[in-house]
């Protein structure tokens, strides 16, 4: 029998770091320190599972006989007290549909709106120019159990930036989704219209596959 380690868990100091797309070269395209939390606004990670009920008449109207897994997302809340305003500004710009994007010759800054309907990832890989998702790193210097959320955007609200003579506590909430790019499909057989799998012809030979998409892990930076 495995001996599990049951102990009081103390993460220790948590430095929040971010990394974005190549269009932010000179900015957060390089791994950048966003900031440190205050004592009360410690980082809080809240995963959300989506389970759908599979009901059968014999079980009555309320209790499912089976559940289906329908993916997950996570929210990461934090209140920063020692942070880099320029890094935060770039994160805000990305959350408003995209910061400066060389490929579209659009130089959106925080406060300037991207076109309505613009997607964030555009099926580009993470850190590619034009992909506006941000990778979020939560360090764990004391216990070496860091968190890495692979594809995030800042939510608003809550995004609160108090301005006063006292130190500013910036309240942030990140949304991490299981973003992935379009992948080449495997298996099936070539047909005149494309790739034939389970009776369906995929003309591009590509699809989005949810299996194995990483929402977070505990890898080092």
């Amino acid at each position, binding site marked *: 029998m495995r001996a599990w380690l049951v102990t*009081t868990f*103390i993460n*220790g*100091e948590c*430095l929040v770091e971010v990394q974005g797309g190549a269009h932010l070269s000179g900015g957060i395209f390089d791994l950048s*320190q966003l900031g*440190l939390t205050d004592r009360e606004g410690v980082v809080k990670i809240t995963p959300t599972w989506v389970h759908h009920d599979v009901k059968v008449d014999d079980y009555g109207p309320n209790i499912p006989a089976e559940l289906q897994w329908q993916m997950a997302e996570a929210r990461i809340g934090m209140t920063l007290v*020692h942070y880099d305003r320029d890094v935060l500004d770039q994160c805000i710009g990305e959350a408003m549909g995209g910061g400066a994007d060389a490929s579209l010759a659009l130089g959106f800054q925080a406060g300037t709106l991207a076109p309505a309907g613009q997607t964030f990832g555009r099926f580009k890989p993470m850190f590619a120019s034009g992909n506006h998702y941000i990778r979020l790193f939560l*360090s764990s*210097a*004391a216990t070496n159990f860091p968190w890495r959320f692979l594809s995030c955007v800042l939510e608003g609200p809550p995004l609160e930036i108090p301005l*006063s*003579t*006292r*130190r500013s506590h910036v309240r942030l909430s990140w949304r991490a989704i299981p973003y992935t790019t379009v992948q080449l499909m495997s298996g099936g057989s070539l047909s005149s219209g494309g790739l034939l799998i389970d009776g369906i012809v995929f003309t591009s030979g590509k699809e989005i596959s949810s299996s194995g998409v990483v929402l977070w892990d505990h890898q080092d930076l």
Partner: protein
Amino acid sequence: MARDYQINGEVMVQVKGKVGSAIAALTNLGLTDRDGIVTITPNFIHEGIPVDAWGDASPEEQFFLAGVNVSMTLVHFDQDVIEECIKLSQAGAAAIGTLPRAGARMGGGAVRFAAGNNYIGLNLTSPVQSKPWRFYFARLTNPPFTWPIGTRRSHVSLNWEVVPYTVDPWNAGAGALGTVYFDRTLDT
């Protein structure tokens, strides 16, 4: 180490401030009177970790750093040096009795003794015992001073607070680990 009576000897209180201040060099602040000897009071900050199974008692505690209070009553002192300490303790006020902006920072993100850092290096000599005290980041606290004025000699009482100031609390991942807030070597 040896057990013995501990006699510090005469204490000269010395201060050193940021470059450009009137106390940019180590400066004599003053001597204490007989009754108002220097008193050093460390403040350790501990926080319990409550566990429901232990009721209202904490089965473990965490140490959350520390500060120090230093109080003294000076009878033979330099009035100009005290006034400079008062200005620096008000985040670098332009003149005695003049306020800076509300919310002005004490350390200003600057290293010790650099322009913008208003903390004061507080030094207590130990000519007999050779165990001096040096507090790295001190400021006058509340009440910062009491200053009797009369026909008799003035005994000025000063209260100092020592904080573990640092420019970058991240400290390359080490946090407060290794931060010095006092030692037993005088400034030069």
